[in-house]
């Protein structure tokens, strides 16, 4: 399969890219920083996912190289924990641009190709912070709420073309994204899960594997939370 994965320089994105590469798939990745992956089946595009022109150029190059895009994983994201009264507007703007605008632009550009192919699977990233309505995550969780609505409507708009769109909502996973979150806060989140442990990268990949599997061709517009959060 040919994958496009955003945010591949570190964390979950890097894990997913390396995992799919090790399974023999090709991966086109991107991040604002230089590549941290060396692999013959990997191509890296240094860009900001909220740049319309850069995203269009990347996808045009990927299509030119691979002809087909089977799966898009919109992993790139930023997090920020802060009380609403002390959150700078610049932070809110940055989170919206990366988390929502980036997902929208990638979906639009890859979606055009998938519609031509009449097939493809897109997986977006939400978070358990949405259903748990976690204090201190008003802006971050709101950008992810937007992703959930975007996922459901995009699934309807692209479903006519054989393109499926779903989202995974991870619990806290040990990555840079949550490094600044106090341990007590993490413990409070875990306490609200049915299965009380930190998430692992493999848990997230398992859901993505399920969503992109050809056997899941009747599954679209869904948001699946990890850890038993409903």
């Amino acid at each position: 399969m040919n994958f496009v994965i955003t945010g591949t320089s570190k964390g979950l994105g890097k894990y997913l890219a390396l995992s799919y590469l090790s399974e023999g798939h090709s991966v086109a990745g991107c991040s604002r920083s230089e590549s941290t992956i060396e692999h013959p089946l990997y191509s890296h595009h240094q860009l900001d996912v909220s740049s319309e022109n850069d995203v269009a150029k990347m996808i045009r190059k990927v299509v030119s190289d691979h002809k087909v895009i089977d799966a898009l994983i919109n992993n790139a994201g930023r997090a920020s924990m802060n009380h609403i009264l002390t959150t700078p507007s610049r932070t809110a703007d940055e989170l919206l641009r990366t988390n929502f605008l980036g997902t929208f632009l990638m979906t639009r550009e890859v979606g055009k190709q998938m519609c031509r192919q009449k097939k493809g699977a897109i997986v977006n990233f939400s978070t358990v912070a949405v259903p748990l309505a976690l204090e201190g995550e008003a802006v971050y969780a709101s950008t992810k709420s937007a992703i959930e609505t975007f996922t459901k409507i995009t699934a309807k708009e692209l479903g006519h073309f054989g393109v499926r769109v779903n989202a995974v909502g991870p619990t806290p996973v040990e990555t840079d994204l949550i490094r600044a979150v106090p341990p007590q806060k993490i413990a409070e989140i875990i306490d609200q899960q049915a299965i009380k442990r930190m998430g692992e990268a493999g848990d997230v990949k398992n859901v993505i594997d399920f969503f992109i599997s050809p056997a899941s061709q009747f599954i679209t517009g869904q948001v699946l939370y990890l850890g038993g959060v409903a």
Partner: protein
Amino acid sequence: MKDRCETLVMAVIKEIAEMEGVAALKNPEKGTKLLGATLDSLGIVLLSSELEEAIHREFKIEVSLADDRAMSQRTSPFRSVGRLAEYVAELASEKLAGQQ
């Protein structure tokens, strides 16, 4: 520029007519109506996507035909072949001028 864009738009519309089996678009003219007449909203989505590709091949520029008016039958640049060719020429001219 206008003539090149018109030729380009006509060629892409013929491709879409083949792909989607739309007999009314096999021999398009400037006055041929598109949105709501010969193409539904999904057809417009396909046309937009194929046309962006064709513009890139022809002019080596990235343009986005996404437009808030795209699905409006009154003001959409996709309402007729002639209007679409004018719209493409405007966008391409702006983009090429910006590169100089």
